[in-house]
Every structure is written in structure tokens, then in C-alpha cells.
């Protein structure tokens, strides 16, 4: 059991690092030239990936996967609230700009 828990932590770390490195690709994919431009797809993807990482850290590293259901629901709700707040603010901001 201890070995599988150790392996699971390592896999979680590996996934987190892979997502982080993906940001380099995401950043470069947005520009055809050296000119940096605003890009809604990059912004939405960046926030989405950050929240995926957030949930992995909470569940795997912080041990919420084995926590009582209340804490599991609370932390999942927190991810949803942050996603709604960040994406909502960004999209509303762009609409009124």
C-alpha cells in the first residue's frame, strides 16, 4: 500500500511537471511572429490548466482524496468558484473594453 501511495505521488508530480512544461508550448503556439498579441484561447487554456494542477495538488499532495466527503466537496467547490470568477471577470472585461 505504501509503495502504491509512493508511486501515485510520483505520477501526480510527473503530470504536474508535464502540464507546466506544456505552458511553454502554449505560449509559443499563440504567435505567428515575434509580435505578442492578446489571445482568449491561450488565456482560457492557461486558467483551465492551472485549475487542473490546483485540484491535483489538493487531492494527491494534500491528501484530500482520503478526506471526509465534506472537505472533498468543499475543495472541488473552491475550484469551480475560482474558475467562474477568473474566467467570468476576464470575459466580461473583454466584452466591456
Amino acid at each position, binding site marked *: *500500500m*505504501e*509503495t502504491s*501511495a*509512493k508511486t501515485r*505521488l*510520483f505520477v*501526480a*508530480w510527473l503530470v*504536474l*511537471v508535464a502540464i*507546466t*512544461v506544456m*505552458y*511553454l508550448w*502554449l*505560449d509559443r503556439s*499563440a504567435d505567428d511572429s515575434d509580435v*505578442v*498579441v*492578446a*489571445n*482568449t484561447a*491561450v*488565456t482560457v487554456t*492557461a*486558467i483551465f*490548466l*492551472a485549475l487542473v*494542477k*490546483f485540484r491535483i*495538488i*489538493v487531492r*494527491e*499532495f*494534500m*491528501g*484530500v482524496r*482520503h*478526506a*471526509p*466527503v465534506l*472537505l472533498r466537496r*468543499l475543495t472541488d467547490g*473552491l475550484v469551480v*468558484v*475560482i474558475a467562474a*470568477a*477568473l474566467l467570468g*471577470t*476576464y470575459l*466580461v*472585461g*473583454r466584452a466591456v*473594453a
Partner: protein
Amino acid sequence: MASADATAAEPVVEEVAHVPGEADMWFFVVFETLVFASYFCVYLYFRTQDERAFLAAQSALDLPLGVVDTIVLLSSSWTIARCVQLVRAGRYDGARQLALVTAGLGAVFMVLKVTEWVRLVHEGHTFTSSDFMQHFFFLTAMHAIHVVIGFVALGIVVHRLMNPQRREHETIETCATYWHTVDLFWVLIFAVLYIVR
């Protein structure tokens, strides 16, 4: 005692549903996350109102360095999570070593962060040079303060693990939860400051 637990095979530890650490720390995690998220909303709104200026200032950041920062902090989160696993398995020497490795990785993160601040200031990017830099320096400095407090939490972990009479698992889990929170904030800060367009 020390050599015995260092060489012992890892015993089977039953995973039972429990709140990792003290419940108060989880109130702190939720509260602080909402405070940071609120600030991100302010940042994102102002960014959308003047995207060209924000993009111009943002281009001064070193994205590969930000990626390295993030990987270093993720690795520190991994090592403190392993530390907690070893504490639960009764392998206190290994746990103490991992807590020290975590602090070392935190120190590497801070050195990289200060290096980035110094480079930016030398290039003329300061707290008052642009709206983006104001948000950048404020958010990264607020995060750095949390990292420094995290060193205190890691110090408590090491101190507790050195003394067989003080090895309460709950305190160690609480301190580890705080350190993970530092990682959580950085994951969000990195996305909104370095990647968001």
C-alpha cells in the same frame, strides 16, 4: 531508534478518511485562496482594459525561468507529501530528511525569484513603471512572504521530527498543508502573470 527506523521496511498504513492536519488550517487555505482569487479578478479586469500595455510589460518576464520556478516548487510539494507519508509509516529519519530537502527547494525558489526581481529592476521595470509590473511585484512579493512563513512551518516539522516526544502527526500534517498552499498560490500566480494573454 534512529538507525532502526531508517532501515525498517515501510509498514502497511491503512488509509482512513480523515482531515489532513487541523481543520483551522483548512479554513485558512480556503480564505487565503479566495483572497488571492479576488486579486486575480482585479488584475484580469484591468488587464482586459489595456491589453496592449499589459502585453508589452509582460514580455519582460522570463517564461522559461517561471517554468523552472514552478517545477522547483512542485517538487517541494512532492517531497513534503512524501515526508507526511513516511511520518504515517513511522519512518521519522527519512521524513526529517525530506522536510529538509523541501526547505532546500523552497530556498532555491526564493533565490530564483530574487534573481528575477533584480534583473527586472536593473532593466528599469519597477513597482511604478507600469500597471502590469505593479501587479507582478505585489503578487510575487505577497507570495514570497507566504514562502518565508512556510520556512517557519518546515522548521516546526523538522523540530518535531527530531524529538520522539513531539512527533504529533496532526501538527506535521498541518505544516505540510500550509506548504502545499504556498504551491497552490504559485500555480495560479504563474498562470495569470506569465501565461495569460
